């Protein structure tokens, strides 16, 4: 069964169609990359899937629920329960340490558990830096903390908008390895990227152009 289904989704700003009649479907456990030129509607689509925005037209089914019709409060609940978000900029609460930043996510989800948060940091290779403030971490390290925060509540779906856009080769590989692990564990991944290397790590790439799906590429060489 499809975890996510967009049916004829459009997002219209004035006379600009940021998304124009997009229909896609993502299976549970699938790893999908989204590519496309700047302004083609990638972030717009991620915001809609991530329950942070609503489509102007069309249906968005997440786990069978049409999130385009739900009120704000329910969307917040869905986002908290099912979705892990990773952004291109490494957004962290500046006055909390790395481990506390991970725990914030636990706090809003259920209960902060420091041991579990430390374990998540260990997975991204940052256990030693748990007590550091964001300002004391490099960009790559901050992004890894954000990945740890996104996966701490075991979301069904991870949405990453240019997660490696600001990372060097080494950090990019660490993040990709983490995605591979998550994929093996059955997490559904949707990753927006400009980087063909990142896209090639996914099972399938959807290319957007001018708000439309231009083509889909199945990665024959995909290895789990």
């Amino acid at each position, binding site marked *: 069964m499809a975890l996510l289904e967009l049916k004829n989704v459009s997002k219209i700003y004035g006379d600009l169609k940021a998304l124009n009649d997009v229909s896609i479907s993502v299976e549970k456990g699938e790893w999908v990359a989204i590519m496309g030129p700047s302004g083609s509607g990638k*972030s717009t689509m991620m*915001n809609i899937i*991530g329950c*942070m*925005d609503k489509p102007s037209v069309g249906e968005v089914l997440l786990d069978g629920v049409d999130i385009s019709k739900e009120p704000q*409060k329910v969307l*917040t*609940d869905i*986002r*908290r*329960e099912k979705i892990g*978000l990773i*952004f*291109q*900029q490494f*957004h*962290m*609460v*500046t*006055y*909390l340490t790395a481990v*506390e930043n991970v*725990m*914030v*996510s636990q*706090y*809003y*989800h259920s209960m*902060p558990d420091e041991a579990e948060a430390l374990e998540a940091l260990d997975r991204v290779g940052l256990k030693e830096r748990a007590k550091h403030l964001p300002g004391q971490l490099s960009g790559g390290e901050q992004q890894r903390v954000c990945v740890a*925060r996104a996966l701490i509540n075991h979301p069904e779906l991870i949405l990453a*908008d240019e997660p490696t856009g600001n990372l060097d080769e080494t950090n990019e590989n660490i993040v990709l390895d983490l995605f591979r692990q998550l994929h093996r564990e059955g997490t559904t991944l949707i990753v927006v990227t400009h980087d063909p290397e990142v896209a090639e790590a996914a099972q399938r790439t959807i290319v957007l152009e001018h708000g439309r799906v231009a083509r889909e590429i199945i990665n024959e060489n995909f290895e789990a």
Partner: protein
Amino acid sequence: MLFKMIRGVLYHQRAKMLLIAFTIVLGTSLATGMLNVMWDVGDKVNQELKTYGANITVKPKDASLLTDIYDVGEGEQLSEAYLNEEDLPKLKTIFWAFNIVDFTPFLEADASLPDGTDAKIVGTWFNHHLSLPTGEELDAGIAGMRSWWDVTGGNWLDESEPSAASSVMVGTLLAEEKGWKIGDEITLAGSAKEMTATVAGIYDAGGDEDLEIYAPLDLVQALTDREGKVDRIEVSALTTPDNELAQRAAKNPSALSSRDYETWYCTAYVSAICYQIQEAIPNASAAAVRQVAESEGTILDKTQLLMLLITALSLIGAALGISNLVTASVMERSMEIGLLKAIGARDRSITFVIMVEILVTALIGGVAGYFLGFGFAQLIGQSVFGSAIEMKLKVIPIVAALITLVTLAGSLPAIRMVLRLRPAEVLHGGQ
């Protein structure tokens, strides 16, 4: 976690939080100071103004008529007209009895002294004890109405002492002239008989009274064989400032419509009180001693209004200040708030964190401000009234409520901003 976040924000934004606390300190201290003074000022101003003495004089009707017609000065009454001493307690039976603070009768005479000279002797009450039919007990007399007299030797006559009946108080100039000391026996001859009295007190009134003798009313009545008679009564009453209605009524109460009459009668205008005194005491004519009667109510009202205005303005100022600072603080954190929303924080839990931060800050500022404001009140009390301001407990909950209200009102724009903030916009911004 919550605690860490709140602590984090308080620490991280300590400059702003300090400013918020400071704003609240200012608002609270002004409000506390003003409210404390305001509630105490009523008593203080009344005390101050009472020291100016009477604001209503009651005379026999015939006497005042004649004085008015022939324009003769006080004490030069053309006819022998008197009020009855026994009618005095009736002052406390009028509608506005509660506003009558003090009163005292006067009976004047000339007494011949052994050295052949004359001195003016004034019979009055000093602290005359009255048990009213209503069951009320009070002490009336000039001790309260001439409180500015400086008793330089001896003491005020105390009518509760048996010796008071044959004691007098003497003006400082007269005592000096005659060489009288405290405890001296002096002989006074009136139109009816001769009596001896002890000098129990010497006062400095700073006026004509310094050449006079003040004696118990009974003594002067006996001296001149005018038992139960008084020349005039001075009344000190709390009054409401006159308005147009009071002025119309003062001219002729019977010309008022019955509705206006009712309103006027049931308001503590000085003219209404005079009118009621005339109703209560037969053959009496009561008149306001103008300036003082007017100023009393006016000053009080105006001072209190001023203080309320200062309080209100300082609170509005505080609300505006808080609103600016909290909005700035939220704006500075919009990325963080967007992030928390994206992670799945509900609006109300984000609002809660922000409100706790601000209320903690407000609490600290409020407590500091309260004590500062109390100091303020003392400063005002000392410099304006020369006495301490009493700490009114009711100010605490009122100020606390006002400050909470001001803080909440000040935070509203920021909270609205938080609720409107869309994570997608702040988190993707700047790309």
